[in-house]
């Protein structure tokens, strides 16, 4: 037994390191899960007179997708979101984060918009209130305005099927 001990210790360490190696360091646990989504009110892209506030969505399960025209992986995600917007009923709100060169309106006009509303967070402060570290990030917010899940990174068909859709079903969407 005794002579196997170093090997056992070694294997346990390897186990820990292997687990650590395959963790995604971007997947920082969000402190908002189970808490109320921070309130805000922002003008809409394309219609600065209208505004969006999470209050508007009370009673609905919805997705808050933080994106930006300058963000490459958001382009990847855009196609998936376009399809989702047509095939499923949960509204997607696209927070346009730190769009300093004002490209969102044109981009959405050219490539289509999967969003029910596009609040314009030019300074990025609303994103910071939600703990956004980089685009794209997506929050699932329930009928009572509670954040239920945060996904960091683009939504791929797999992410939708394995992670987001089950959560939406669980919430009763």
């Amino acid at each position, binding site marked *: 037994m005794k002579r196997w001990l170093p090997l056992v210790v070694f294997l346990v360490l390897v186990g820990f390191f292997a687990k650590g190696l395959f963790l995604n*360091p971007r997947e*920082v*646990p*969000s*402190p908002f899960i189970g808490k109320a989504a921070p309130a805000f009110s922002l003008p809409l892209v394309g219609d600065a007179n209208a505004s969006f506030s999470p209050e508007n969505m009370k009673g609905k399960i919805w997705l808050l997708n933080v994106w930006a025209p300058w963000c490459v992986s958001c382009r990847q995600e855009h196609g998936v979101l376009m399809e989702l917007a047509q095939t499923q009923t949960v509204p997607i709100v696209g927070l346009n984060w*730190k769009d300093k060169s004002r490209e969102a309106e044109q981009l959405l006009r050219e490539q289509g918009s999967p969003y029910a509303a596009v609040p314009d967070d030019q300074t*990025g*402060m609303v994103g*910071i*209130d*939600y*703990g956004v*570290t*980089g685009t794209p990030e997506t929050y699932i917010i329930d009928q009572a305005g509670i954040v239920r899940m945060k996904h960091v990174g683009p939504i791929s068909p797999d992410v939708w099927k394995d992670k987001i859709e089950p959560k939406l079903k669980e919430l009763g969407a």
Partner: protein
Amino acid sequence: MKSLLFSLLLALSIPAWAEEAAPIGEDPVIEQRMIKLSEELRCLVCQNESLAGSHAELAEDLRREIRTQMKAGKNDKEVITYLTTRYGDFVLYRPPFKPVTFLLWLGPVLFLGLGAGIWYMTLKKRRALKDEPVDEQQLAAAAQLLEDKK
């Protein structure tokens, strides 16, 4: 000795680089407080850099926000609460001492205790070994073995 001294000096110089990225604000007192605080905070974009040393845009925004809050009279603790409610304890390089982090903080003491235990047991076992008298015959056998090896 000289190289040791050199590497020590090198180690001391690291915090000095970290400040380089922070732009100089108008108020040197607030600036110094902001830098001191943000050295303890993690940049969320480049996670191994401090908020003080990072060039990431988000880090700049957060430094600006810290500065603004300090100017508004918030103390360091309130600023840290502002950040942890948004980004969680992950933003702190020194995680707080609470049930989830007990193992993290106490782990080294635990391992030290374990090491001390093993050390003590080994010494005890060794002390228990008594000098046993060796007779002539055994000595001769040993000498013979050594001789055979030659």
